[in-house]
Structure formats: C-alpha cells, structure tokens
C-alpha cells in the first residue's frame, strides 16, 4: 500500500462546507495539497461565478505587485526571499493588503511622474546649456567681423567668409553664391537664426531636408554633444547634436521651424547679444544645480519606498496568489439552495482521508464556525485520476514513464523497475569505468549539494534537466562503472588485477620472425579457467581480433538481456490481468504471448548458453571449436523449417540430441499460439454475449449489457444497447485484437533485433574511446624530454575536453535516448496502456511555483 508499484487508490468525495468556513477550509486543503476539486459548474462562464469579484481584486493586486516588482528590478534592489510561505490571510485582511498596495502604487507613480517631469526639465536645461556653449563657439569665431560691420548684408558676408574659409562643405559655398546674389546692394535683409538640439542620427536627413526645402538659402552649423543625454520617457541614453541655422526673412524662418518640428528637434531661445547669452548661461547653470538636488531627493525617496517594498514583496506575492487560488477553487463549488453551504466534489487518495478530515477541522476552528464540514465518499463509474506518490529519488524515474503516458488507474507502474533497469541498460551501452566515474561523480556532487543548488532557482533549462535527473545520472554512472569493470575498459585501457589467464609460450625467434601471432586456446596458452571478473585484459591488447571476440560476446548479452527484459514485461501484464480480474486476457493473451516468447526467443538464449558451455578448443571432434554452429543461422533455419547445411567433416549439425525435433515442436507450438491470441478473446466474448442474450431474453436489455460488460471487462466493458450495436462492437473487437496480435508477433521479432542497439552503441563507445586514446593522448605520451611535458599538458587538455564533451556528454545523451526507447517501446508495449490522466491536486506550492500559469487560467 502506498507504494510506487500501482497508483494510489482514489475515491470521489462530496464535501459540504459552511459558507463562513469554506475559505479557511480550502486554505488548509491548499496547504495540504492532496485534493483535486472538480468543476461543478462547467456551464457557467468565468464572469458569472460567485467569487469573480474577489478573483478580480486579486488580479488587480497582483498587477500592482508586478508593477512594484518591475520598478524594484529596474533599480536593482535585491528582493528578500526567505523561501517561507505565509499562510493565506483571512478574507478581511485582503482590504488591508489592497490599501497597502494602492498606497504604494500611487506613491510610486507620483514619484515617478515627478521624477519624469524633473528629468525632462533637467534635459531641457542641459540641452540649453550645451547650445549656449556651442553657439558661443560659432559666434566667437566670427565675432570680430560681425560686430564691427554695420549692415546686415556685410554681416552676412562675413558669415559666408567664415564658411568659405573653413571650406566646410560645398553646401556653404553654394549658399554663398546664392547669398551673394540675394544680398545685392539695396536689399536690406534681416538675418535671423534659430538654435536647437536634434538626435544625432537624424542630422544628415535633417540637413538634406533643409537644403531642399529652402533651396540652399539657409546656413547650418552643427556640433556634437559628446556626453550622452538621458531620455526621460524611457531612460535610454541618446546622443544629440547642437545645430544653429541662419536664414533670411520670415518666410524661411517659418519653413525652418516647421522642418525642425517635423524632425522633432527642440528649439531653444538664444539671445543674440553675447552678454545676454553669458547671463543666460549663468542662470541655466544655477537652475541645473537646483534641479540636481531636487532630483537627488526624489530618487532617494523612491529608493526608500522600493527598499521597504522589496522586503515584503515575495511574501505579498505568495499571499495574494494564495487568496486568488482559494477563490478560484471556491468558484468551482456548487452553492446549495439555502445559500448556507457550498458543495464540492473532489478526488482524494483513500489513504489520506484522515489527514484531510483533520485539515478540514482545523479550518473550521480557525474560521470560528460551529458546524463541522462533512466529507462523504461517493460511488462513481468514472475513471479516477492516477496518483503516484513520489519522493525526490523516484520523481525523475516517474517523470520518464509519465513522459510516455500517464498510467491507467491502478495499472502496474513500470517506474520502480525502471529505477534499476534504466541505468543498467544504459550502462551496457556506456560501459567504461572512467567515463562512468565522471558521470557518477557529477551525479554525486549534485546530490550532495542538493539543497544549495535547489535554492538558487535558475531558468537555465539544460541545467534544470540535469539537476532534476541527478539520481538517474548518479545511478547511470555507478552502473557504467560496473559494466566498465566487466568490459575491463577504463578510458579504452584494461586493468590487469587478477593476472591474465592467457600466457605466452613462444620462443624469442618465433616472435621475431612473425609480425602477428595468435595464441591457441587449445593448448597451455590458455589456463583453462577464465579471468574471474570481467574480460581478460589480453583482449584489449589483441588489436587484430579483439573486435571479433567482443562482438560475439556483446551481441549475445544484448539478446540475452533483451529477451529477459521483454519476458519481464509480459509477466507484468500477468499482474495487470489478475489485478483487474481479466480472465479472458489472462488465458487468451498472456499465456500465448509468454509461450511465443519463451519457445522462440528464450530458446535462442538457451542455445547461447549451451554453445558457451559445450564447445571448446580442447574438446574432441564433435564439440571442438571448428564445429561450433552459428546460433543465428540455427535460429533462422529453425523458424523457416530449413534443412540445415551439412556441417564440416566430423561435426554434428545439432548441439544436443533431439534438437531438430524439439525445434520443430517449439516452432509449431509458437505458431499455434498466434490464432489463440488472434481469435481466443473475441470468440469468447461473442459466445458470452450470445449466451447472455438467450438467457436473459425475457428480462430487460439493460441487465444483459451489464452482465456482458462484467464478463468481458477490459476492452469490451462499454457494452451498448441493441443487437446491432453488439455486432459492431464485436467486429471492432476482432479488428482490435488482430492489430494487437500482429503487433505482438512482429514486434517480438523486431524488438529482439532492436535490443542489438545495446551491442552497437557499446561497440561504438569503446571504439571512440580507443580512437581518442591512440589519435590524441598517445601522441602526447610519445614525446620525450621537457618538450614532451609541455606537449603532454596540451594534448591531455585536448583529450580531456573531447572525453567529457563527446564521450561522456554526447555519447551519454545518445545512450540515454536509446535506453529510453528500449523502455518505452520494447518493454512497456508488453503491458502498459498509459491512457490515464494525472492527479492534479489543489496545492499552494505548485500554484506559487508557476504563478503565471494560474493567473492565465483565471483570465
């Protein structure tokens, strides 16, 4: 009970809550997080529910809090996060909270408004300051001539000269010619100017526009403001330029002003006389200083307000979200006719009813209500939700299973077996002591630092995945170390702990004369007993035929483990059938399935063990090494009823006497299983229905259906109304069973082959590690002297990066995915339906964790 093997027993309960006590009770249940409420008014739209006003108020509060949070983040003030979760406040406290937030928001908005106005003012003044300073330069350059000259025209000419002298641009020259023509003697023109500030990037366009619109009759000078200015509306730093435009006549003036407006240039009054300008500059400076003090004070005030708010912000968020969640839940309830109490329906784990009742009592006491809430168990034909109680260790494994599909209610849960089989199958592919150790240490580090790492929540998705799977990673690493020891592989090298059981018996001259020599297992080269633990280290050195030997070994273990894994899956289906009292499936599905698997594939596994045991190089002829038959060929011949090829001279075709007979028998039996799987169940259902119809003819149809449903259970449980409907159902059952059978029969062949990926990936991993050693690290090891030391350091770094990056990370990922597939497809297809729906209790923890999700739901 209460374990991971099957999901929790659930029951539907009806809950009667006093209106006054409802809030407190739901709050207690939310803290508990063991109850899933059902929506009792699904037809009522979200705006017509009872507590919609409260939810809306909470939304408003949340908005204000978000505004505060944004402002706090803008100022970079650290927010105090104690991680504790305050209880949901009483409904009457909501008003206080609202008032607090209202006040804070208003204050902040006011401060911000003031600050913005001040900043705008400040910006204007600064711009004016710059204008005065820059235009001073323009005027200074030409002052001596301008102010000596008497007429405007000559003043204008001076300007032209000034421009000409500087040879600033052609534009000025063009303007010059025209200007000269325009200022013919007799025409006394007034030369005016405007000064302003414009964004630097707009300046070229502005200049061009001016030139075109005024036909070159204006003269523009500009200077950059070096320091960036702050834009008061959004706080950006912008670069601007000062410009001054000289022109003649009012018409041009209005045109220039319009263009300035169009380009959003700000114009400032600039006195013509230098004394006025100086005076104005002085005034501006003092005003800027004053403004600075005021601005500083405003900022200080804002900062104080925000710091005070930052202390409580997280706390407030939790409170508001809790209130909102409670009202949201209350909206799911039904109002009783008398309006005195609320009726709720909820799914509850059977084991926790006591705890829930306690929580309800606490809630009642807290609210001061005298009438206790009533929790009634209800009968229902609905499918209850699937609830697997997990802890931090089992959670990740359960998540792997749930990613495929949530188990049906009370179905066998593969997760507890996955805890070991998953890392183990992974390790068969990833077997390397060194790589496994790296992985295990990484997992161990995450487990040891669990609390600290969990506290610093990050949005880094990759890290979160690794951290969530820390126990899987650790176990995968540990099992990889074990399989690595069995493969005797550590960074593609072997350990010789027990001393190799192969020995050399060569003469020196023999060794010198031959490039390669093969040890003979039939002689004293081989001790007669194998290396006690794992692969003999000699195979790692046997460059020429290491892969041949390893392949034969690894292919066999892949199939052995695969067949056992699948058989295990089929046996799990037995647990399901017996639990759901599904006798039909037990007899007509489970037994033939198991027989099929055992007779064909387990027999093949048996042959492997026989071959390992029987054939040896030291044995006389029929069982010597040259006579050892290929198991794959034997198996193919067996299934296809082929006549085996004649064996070599002195050998036998079969491994044991009577093998031919047994093989034929097994295949025939296995073939017989197929029609049983295909037709057994549907025919039985059909017969049962017929029988029921005949027997119960006089009585009403409804009972007959119920009986049929009772007999057939499982797939045919929803028995329909009339005969016609039954007929359809039957044909559907036949089709369904047909698909199921074909899937199983073909599947067991393809799935067995699919387990060969264990061999393929393990081979690839070992080879990659080997390549990395010979191509990278050994080049560093071959150097001598101090240069070799430096070389080795560099090469080692390179090798280490490649080892971690490719062999541990990428190979690990690929092996992980293959293992996942082996579990989802090859293992779970044998028994797992995965068509349930998950239990989603009303829990504050979850709601606060993804606060945005719940708010989205409410909208």
């Amino acid at each position, binding site marked *: 009970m*209460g*374990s*991971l*093997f099957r999901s929790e027993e659930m029951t539907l309960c009806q809950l009667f809550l006093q209106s006054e006590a409802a809030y407190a009770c739901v709050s207690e249940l939310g803290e508990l997080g063991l109850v899933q409420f059902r929506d009792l008014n699904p037809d009522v739209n979200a705006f017509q529910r009872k507590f919609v006003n409260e939810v809306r108020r909470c939304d408003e509060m949340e908005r204000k809090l978000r505004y505060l949070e944004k402002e706090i983040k803008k100022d970079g003030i650290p927010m105090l996060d104690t991680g504790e979760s305050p209880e949901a406040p009483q409904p009457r406290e909501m008003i206080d909270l609202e008032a607090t937030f209202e006040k804070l928001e208003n204050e902040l908005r006011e401060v911000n408004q003031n600050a913005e106005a001040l900043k705008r003012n400040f910006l204007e003044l600064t711009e004016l300051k710059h204008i005065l300073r820059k235009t001073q330069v323009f005027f200074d350059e030409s002052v001596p001539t301008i102010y000596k000259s008497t007429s405007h025209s000559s003043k204008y000419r001076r300007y032209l000269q000034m421009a000409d002298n500087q040879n600033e641009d052609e534009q000025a020259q063009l303007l010059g010619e025209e200007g000269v023509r325009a200022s013919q003697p007799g025409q006394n023109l007034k030369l005016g100017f405007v000064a302003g500030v414009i964004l630097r990037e707009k300046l070229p366009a502005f200049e061009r526009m001016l030139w075109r619109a005024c036909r070159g009759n204006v003269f523009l000078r500009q200077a950059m403001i070096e320091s960036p200015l702050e834009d008061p509306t959004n706080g950006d730093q912008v670069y601007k330029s000062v410009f001054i435009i000289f022109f003649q006549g009012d018409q041009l003036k209005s045109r220039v002003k319009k263009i300035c407006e169009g380009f959003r240039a700000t114009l400032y009054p600039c006195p013509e006389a230098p004394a006025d300008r100086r005076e104005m500059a002085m005034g501006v400076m003092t005003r800027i200083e004053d403004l600075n003090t005021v601005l500083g004070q405003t900022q200080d005030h804002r900062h104080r307000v925000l710091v005070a708010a930052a202390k409580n912000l997280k706390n407030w968020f939790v409170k508001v979200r809790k209130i909102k969640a409670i009202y949201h839940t209350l909206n799911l309830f039904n109002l009783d006719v008398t309006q005195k109490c609320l009726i709720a329906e909820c799914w509850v784990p059977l084991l926790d009813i006591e705890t829930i009742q306690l929580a309800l009592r606490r809630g009642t006491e807290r609210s001061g209500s005298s009438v206790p809430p009533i929790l009634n168990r209800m009968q229902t034909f609905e499918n209850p939700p699937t609830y697997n109680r997990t802890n931090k260790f*089992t959670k990740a494994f359960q998540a792997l299973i749930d990613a495929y599909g949530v188990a049906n209610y009370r179905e066998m849960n593969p997760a*507890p077996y996955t*805890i*070991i*089989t998953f890392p*183990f199958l992974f390790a068969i592919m990833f077997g390397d002591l060194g790589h496994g150790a790296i992985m295990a240490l990484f997992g161990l580090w995450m487990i040891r630092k669990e609390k600290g790492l969990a506290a610093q929540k990050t949005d880094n998705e990759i890290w979160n995945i690794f951290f969530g799977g820390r126990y899987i990673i650790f176990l995968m690493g540990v099992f990889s170390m*074990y399989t690595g020891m*069995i493969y005797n592989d550590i960074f593609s090298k072997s350990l010789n702990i027990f*001393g*190799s059981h*192969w*020995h*050399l018996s*060569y*003469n*020196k*001259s023999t*060794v010198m004369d031959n490039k*390669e*020599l*093969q*040890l*003979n*297992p039939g002689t004293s080269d*081989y001790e*007669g*007993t*194998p290396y*006690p*633990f*794992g*692969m*003999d280290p*000699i*195979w790692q*050195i*046997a*460059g*020429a*035929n*290491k892969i041949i*030997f390893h392949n*034969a*070994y690894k292919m*066999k*273990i892949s199939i*052995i*483990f695969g067949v*056992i894994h699948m058989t295990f899956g089929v046996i799990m289906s037995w647990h399901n059938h017996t639990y759901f009292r599904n006798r039909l499936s037990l007899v007509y599905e489970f037994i033939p399935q198991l027989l099929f698997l055992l007779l064909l594939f387990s027999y093949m596994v048996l042959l492997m063990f026989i071959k*390992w*045991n*029987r054939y*040896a*190089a030291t*044995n006389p002829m029929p069982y010597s*090494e040259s006579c050892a038959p290929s198991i794959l060929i034997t198996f193919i011949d067996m299934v296809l009823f082929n006549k085996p090829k004649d064996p070599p001279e002195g050998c036998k075709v079969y491994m044991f006497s009577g093998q031919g007979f047994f093989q034929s028998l097994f295949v025939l039996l296995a073939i017989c299983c197929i029609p049983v799987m295909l037709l057994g169940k549907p025919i039985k259902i059909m017969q049962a229905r017929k029988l029921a119809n005949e027997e119960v003819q006089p009585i009403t149809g409804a009972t007959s259906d119920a009986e049929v449903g009772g007999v057939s259970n499982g797939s045919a449980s929803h028995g329909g109304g009339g005969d016609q409907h039954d007929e359809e159902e039957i044909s559907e059952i036949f089709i369904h069973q047909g698909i199921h059978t074909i899937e199983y029969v073909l599947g067991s062949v393809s799935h067995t082959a699919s387990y060969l990926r264990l061999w393929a990936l393990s081979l690839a991993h070992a080879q990659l590690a080997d390549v990395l050693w010979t191509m990278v690290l050994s080049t560093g090891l071959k150097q001598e002297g101090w240069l070799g030391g430096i070389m080795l350091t560099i090469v080692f770094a390179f090798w280490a990066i490649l080892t971690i990056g490719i062999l541990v990370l990428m190979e690990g990922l690929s092996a992980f995915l293959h293992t996942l597939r082996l579990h989802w497809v090859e293992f779970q297809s044998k028994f797992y339906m995965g068509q349930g729906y998950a239990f989603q209790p009303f829990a504050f923890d979850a709601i606060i964790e993804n606060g945005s999700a719940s708010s989205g739901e409410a909208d």
Partner: protein
Amino acid sequence: MGAAFFPIFFFTALWGGVGIGLPIMTPKGPHQNLIRCILMLTAACCWLFWLCCYMAQMNPLIGPRLKRDAIQMIAKSWDNPLKDG
C-alpha cells in the same frame, strides 16, 4: 568445462547476498518493497552480466591475435618471459 569453483561461488554468493540477504534485512517502512525490488533487480542484473562475461570466456573458440610489440610488452611487464631459442 572451463569453470573454476571459487570465482563462481564468490560472485554468486556476493550477488545472492545483495539480492536475497539484504532484501530480508530491509527495515520496515513505506518504501520497504521498493528497496527490496531495487536490490533484487540490481543483484539479478549484475550477476547475470558477470556470468555472461565469465561464460563467454570459459571455453574460448579463438585465441587473441597479438602483434609483435604487444607480445614483447606482455613478456616484459606481465612477468611472462619468452623462451630462449
């Protein structure tokens, strides 16, 4: 029959201990069955894996094919001197 008694006995006893002995000793509690299941599966997997490796080498059909320098290295470092002549 190329099996040696001691290794087989030792590793079978070791994994037998893990797969049978430890589950008997697991303390009572809500996770007792889960821990038992984990231990038994671990023992079964690890024992079978070791056994397969052992049996695959018990009666080798081929011998390792060694290169000359590998042979010389084995002779030197695995205390397996080559005969003179």
